């Protein structure tokens, strides 16, 4: 799971163009949305695409995203449980 967490941090930095951040800047339990990293609803849609394209998980309701994308920890756990790629 550790490798997956690093992979996720890299993907988030790239997809959301967080130019000034490195993987060390994102802690596993940091809140991703609103406070913490300050991501918003458009970013949530980007993360949903990553889930689909890279891990084969299709989320049909964007509201589910809130729980899954709470932190790198929760994302990694969800992906581990549901990935098809």
């Amino acid at each position, binding site marked *: 799971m550790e490798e997956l967490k690093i992979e996720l941090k890299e993907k988030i930095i790239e997809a959301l163009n967080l130019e000034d951040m490195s993987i060390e800047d994102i802690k596993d339990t940091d809140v991703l949305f609103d406070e913490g990293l300050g991501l918003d609803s*458009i970013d949530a849609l980007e993360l949903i695409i990553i889930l689909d394209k890279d891990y084969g998980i299709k989320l049909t309701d964007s509201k589910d995203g809130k729980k899954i994308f709470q932190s790198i920890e929760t994302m990694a756990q969800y992906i581990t449980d549901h990935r098809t790629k």
Partner: protein
Amino acid sequence: MERCYINGVGCVSVQNTFEGNFLENPIDYSDTNIIYAVKPNYKDFIPPAAIRRMSAGVKNSVVASSIAMNDANVETLDGIITGTGMGCIQDSEKFLDKMIEFNEEYLTPTSFIQSTHNTVSGQIALKLKCNAYNFTYVNTGGSFPSALLDGVMQVKDEGKNNILIGGIDEIAEYTFKLYQAIGHIKKDGEVPFNIFENRSEGSIGAEGAVFFVLGNEKKENSYAEIIDTHIINNLKVDKVNDFIQDFLQNNDIKIEDVDTIILGNNGDINFDSYYDEAEKMFQSSEIIYYKHLFGEFMTAPSISLWVASNILKNQEIPSVLYKNNKKNSSNAIRTILIYNQYRGKDHSLILMKNV
């Protein structure tokens, strides 16, 4: 009827224009046919969380509009009006590329949202939490002139104050290749690019973001007064004389009253003849140009307004604006006329006075 003053300017262009420098050390681009803007330090103006989604055009606009508002010493606006020829074309390209590459799968919304034409106006409003009037014009060479006309009407006819107007266009690699393919932009390698001596098909492609704060209050550091502006979408070369005469007449100005005329020559052999006609009419005025320094893009008329504003304020014409770097006239500069057109369409005139 109020008067309309330019009370603040901000310019990001291929020259060093955002640091309040009026063409002191112009950069020579005679070996380039596609010129990128000189980038300001974006982080000085935009929080990192916002920068990450913005294309060059949007970033340049946020910077130029901030500079203009600071220059005018205003924090709130009665309106935000922009003109853009191609819109946020970098994001359009991104979205199109992905849509075609992945056959409509795995698409993300960011570049789609950023590609909408009114992104710049919307982003500025968001940043300022400004609920006021917010328009975007996307009409090729008439985009900025339309924004200007709207702004002037807001101030003169409708008594508004602090209207932000801007012209923005950005370079996108593939799109510019397409325009080269159809002869709108000069082909590579026809160096040196000299718009006066080597007229050929196409223009030199460039980009810019230029903003102004218009107001009905004359301030100590007001740049100039805009008397009138007029646009017509089609004009034959032999009607240029009438077009300009009618406009001046409607404003009780005679040809000899125009100290300086700014022309939009861009070196395109197919369309510079319009400017030749205009030039013939103003043999006793200072005749100056700007696209040899700033290149061509659909909203380049915004650069000509910036040039005129600075000339009227400084009461000096930099010699680089003349065709042969000729020594500038030492007479007072009171009335400037600007004439632009884009590939034979969207002819615009702007009449300005010193304050």
